[in-house]
């Protein structure tokens, strides 16, 4: 179903704008307040030089009469922006934090509602980046937008003010700016190739380290850690060399940038000085001119401002991708209370990547029985397991549990009725015990240990440093151990139907038999669907469904099917 939802024809830069608009609406009050604060602050900043200049003139002229008022005004224009800046800082940070949290919760909800099919569109790692990183970037948009008016008003006001004091000052500034920028640009050199070389060597060291880490046991046993360190670090001098070069390049460009503003200011001051000597300007005007020139160079900051907006927009576009993930819809029906867990597939078809991986599957799994599904890799076994518990919906056909179509069931009813165990389970829930308890409901501790015992996990869990309370991150688990935790989780949540998707592949044959014996004896789920690779597993099931190329090639007991050479070939290596 997810596969049939049409995608946007072409991603456009505007895809993220609805997200930004929603974020803006969410923080509308704060954004407006912030805009008022920044505008007021910029207004004060634009007034201050003129007032300061006039005050200085009055002071120099020793006209004690008016000076008091102007001194007061200057003091106010110095202190009020300080308060406004503090408010600005607080509002900017809290608005961004609030918006970030809101976007993150929304994205988390979108991802969870889309379920496992989300990663078919966006890789898991990319989802994390969007959920954690892009939300934070997109969330800066309201605060940045609020500051835009001020960011434009500052430099513009500076230039206008220069012109008001003396038109020649504005001319000097406007003529000097592009000239100087051009002059400096001529010296700028590309630095991207040093960065590329630096990153390449960094990658080389990381690659060597990764190799050595894969051989950690060999290295520890051979006592060759020192030699390995040398081998891994061999490219380090090259890294250092490129690093030094990067600093030199950066120093050059910083030095160039650092000259621009002071030189422009000096140019304006020179013009102001000449006018001063002709008595066309006062000392206070000159002081104001130098401040306005500094404000006018804030154009560079405006560029940074626009850049930030572009970044937010890009991040928002990536969030739009998350928003567009189709959620899995659930129905409103419940299962009949007395159902035995009968699973029925009718005319089921599934497509992956435009190719049919299951075709015309009709299958009945009577309540209380075990069905093994076998087939070569790529025959559609895992897709069948996905469909049977509605991790995905079939592209055609219908699947019912105790007579109710799976897609009509409520979320709670469906997930409580079906339990899954996988070949490579994701261990969520924090601790080892939490992993087993993880699910739609939390079973009591006694049920957790009972399930662990049935899955033959209890033994090794007790050997962990803190037993069931050991954090998963602190418990290096082998593939077989992880599988047993996944089985225990399924056992602890068993409802009507238990689906094991290759969930015992890393267990030795003895453990596997112990687990399946326990499964039959102790686990409540009456009906079981087991994707299997081993003939012994198939042999213990009531019936076997043999898949070949997405079709049902045979259905019967293992002993019966074993007569078919094609069936036997499935298990051959």
């Amino acid at each position, binding site marked *: 179903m997810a596969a049939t939802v049409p995608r946007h024809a072409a991603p456009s830069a505007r895809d993220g704008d609805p997200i930004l608009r929603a974020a803006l609406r969410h923080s509308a009050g704060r954004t407006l307040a912030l805009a008022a604060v920044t505008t007021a602050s910029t207004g004060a900043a634009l007034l201050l030089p003129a007032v300061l200049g006039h005050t200085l003139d009055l002071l120099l002229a020793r006209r004690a009469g008016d000076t008091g008022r102007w001194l007061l005004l200057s003091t106010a224009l110095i202190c009020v922006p300080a308060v406004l800046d503090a408010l600005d800082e607080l509002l900017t940070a809290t608005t961004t934090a609030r918006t970030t949290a809101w976007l993150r919760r929304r994205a988390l909800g979108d991802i969870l509602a889309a379920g496992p099919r989300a990663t078919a569109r966006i890789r898991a790692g990319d989802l994390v980046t969007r959920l954690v990183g892009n939300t934070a970037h997109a969330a800066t948009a309201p605060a940045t937008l609020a500051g835009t008016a001020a960011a434009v008003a500052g430099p513009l006001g500076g230039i206008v003010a220069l012109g008001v004091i003396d038109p020649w000052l504005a001319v000097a500034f406007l003529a000097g700016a592009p000239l100087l920028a051009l002059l400096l640009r001529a010296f700028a050199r590309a630095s991207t190739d040093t960065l590329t070389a630096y990153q390449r060597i960094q990658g080389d060291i990381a690659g060597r380290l990764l190799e050595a880490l894969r051989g950690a046991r060999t290295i520890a046993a051979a006592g060759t850690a020192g030699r390995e360190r040398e081998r891994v670090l061999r490219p*380090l001098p090259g890294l250092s060399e490129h690093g030094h070069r990067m600093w030199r390049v950066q120093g050059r460009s910083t030095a160039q940038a650092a000259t621009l503003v*002071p030189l422009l200011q000096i140019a304006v001051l020179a013009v102001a000085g000449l006018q001063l000597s002709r008595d066309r300007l006062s000392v206070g005007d*000159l002081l104001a001119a130098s401040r306005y020139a500094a404000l006018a160079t804030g154009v560079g900051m405006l560029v940074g401002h626009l850049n930030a907006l572009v970044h937010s927009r890009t991040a928002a576009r990536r969030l739009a991708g998350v928003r567009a993930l189709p959620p899995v819809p659930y129905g409103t029906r419940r299962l009949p209370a007395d159902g035995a867990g009968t699973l029925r597939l009718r005319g089921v078809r599934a497509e992956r990547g435009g190719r049919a991986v299951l075709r015309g599957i009709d299958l009945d799994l009577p309540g209380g029985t075990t069905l093994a599904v076998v087939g070569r890799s790529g025959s559609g076994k895992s897709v069948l397991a996905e469909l049977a518990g509605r991790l995905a919906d079939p592209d055609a056909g219908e699947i019912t549990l105790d007579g109710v179509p799976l897609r009509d069931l409520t979320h709670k009813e469906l997930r409580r009725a*079906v339990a*899954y165990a996988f070949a490579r389970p994701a261990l969520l829930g924090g601790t080892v015990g939490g992993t087993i308890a993880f699910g739609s409901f939390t079973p009591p501790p006694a049920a957790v240990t009972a399930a662990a015992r049935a899955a033959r996990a209890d033994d090794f869990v007790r050997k962990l440093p803190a037993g069931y309370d050991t954090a998963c991150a602190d418990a290096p688990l082998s593939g077989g151990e992880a599988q047993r935790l996944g089985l225990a989780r399924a056992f602890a949540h068993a409802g009507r139907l238990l689906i094991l998707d290759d969930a015992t592949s890393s267990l030795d044959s003895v453990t596997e038999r112990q687990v399946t014996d326990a499964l039959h004896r102790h686990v409540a789920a009456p009906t079981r669907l087991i994707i299997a690779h081993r003939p012994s597993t198939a042999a213990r099931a009531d019936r076997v469904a043999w898949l070949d190329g997405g079709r049902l090639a045979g259905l019967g007991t293992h002993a019966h099917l074993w007569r078919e050479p094609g069936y036997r070939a499935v298990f051959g290596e």
Partner: protein
Amino acid sequence: MILRHGTAFLRQPPHRRALAGLAAWSVVEAAQTFTTGYALARALDDGFLAGRPAAGLAWLAAAAVAVAAGAYGTGRTYRQVAGLAEPLRDALVRRVVARALHDADGAAVSRLTHQVEIARDTFAGLLMVARSFVFTAAGALAGLFLLAPVLLAVVVPPLVLGLALFVLTLRPLARRQEAYLAADEALSQSSDAVCAGLRDVTAGGAERVVEAGTGALVDEGLRTANALARWSVTRVVALAVAGRLPVVPLLLATPWLLDHGVTPGALVGALAYLTQSLLPALQSLVHGLGTSGSRLVVVLRRLTAPASAPDAVPPASCPVPPGGPAVELRGVTFGYGRHAEPVLRGLDLTLPVGGRLAVVGPSGVGKSTLAALVAGLLGPWEGEVRVGGAPARAPGAAARRVLIPQEAYVFSGTLGENLRYLRDDPVGDREVLAAADAVGAAALVRRLGGLAAPLVPDELSAGERQLVALARAYLSPAPVVILDEAACHLDPAAEARAERAFAARPGGSLVVVAHRAGSALRADRVLVMDGPGTAAGTHAELLARSALYRDLMGAGGSDPAGALGDADGVDAVAGPGLAGDGGHVVAHGAVRQVQAARDLADGGAAGGQ
């Protein structure tokens, strides 16, 4: 602790030189700051206000020259910063690599590429900001002093007050910053687990649980961000007091100053110092130190965290006392944690020189632990492990035993380098090729193009990697060979050939952690591990005595797999009509699912900008 490390780092001679160079070029830069106000004052007093515009322009030209010189100085300071930041990065890389090799910690790779770079950049940034402030302040204060010493009395008190306020808030601010970064990291880790495990979340119907759990981390992020924002206000206040406020007393004192011989030019110059030099320098100091400082501390703390207790075997070789059995365990008890149940309890075991022992048991029972104890990689809680008569963990162990684990180590280099890895002495090609031939790797050597051919680890299959590791171990001078499922990716015939080769090494003894039943059949002694209880004996004895052993060998029991016919090299995979399990007595692929601790600022998340 980081402070102590830091000063020790800066005290090293080359770093002291870089610091001195940094100071010297900063003086050039400070000269520009000094000129900013001073030249302006002189341009007014001696030039524009004195009716000598040419002199005024000349002073401004001098200021422009100082700008150019100062910029040159700025450019040069970057080289000196490189002289400090690059060695710091080198030291951190060395440390991370050493610790990673010591702890076999997979998370180290992202630490290497990510956190080390954060440390390098923030360190350099802090250095630049702090240096810039100190020298700008010095230049501006010197200028004020030259213009009129009394100006200092007006300007310095608020500056000092503001700086004191800033310094006082540094520590609480750093704590908020750290809490914020920690919250972001926790969210990153949780999101990682959730996005990678969406299938399991949906299958378990645990969307609500996850939404609540991860949502709580989102809220925690909001809380810490708000706390940080509130404390950041103090920064702005400090900045206002130190940077903006001094203008007010200066204006108030102006009439008095003018009465006491301070010129109008000096006043304008003083204002220029305040607004154009000190305020911007303060701004970068306050914003730089406030955030980067705590970021650097957090990253450095993580990067320089002490490694776990030393565990590696010293590689030094010393003469081996002759005599004694090849491997001897006396009352060995071992477990993985204080509260954990032991994996082995009171195990006694003797393997005579030339003996061949197979270790079998269900997966996870502790076979690899036993191999690690024999190799001396782990030390027993109780009891004693001796190899070739010497304690397993005594120096020179590498000369007495060689361990080949399941995950074969192959590194980028030539095939020859890989094969000679365990030999310190020069080994002729003939001997190397003979070893490769003995373990069945001759065809692989030919395919790769001989010993001098470069070897790309990712291009080898798992089985080929194991062949390389086996040939390498065969060349090792150590008499005792421990194969810990070292041939599990080879087919049974190839595995049997390799085992035979090792058993036939002159004076060689062999311990095989068995992957297939065949290994046990070929051994002259078998150890069956069944939880803490173990049984040892010959194949026939154990068949009679141990139900578990019968199970593992596929003999008897309810399994329709039936008996196995692995007579030294015959594939035990079920033949037609026989639904066997391929004779696998243990699991494949002990994949370590160690969760890589999410590193700081991964994916640009922690910055939150």
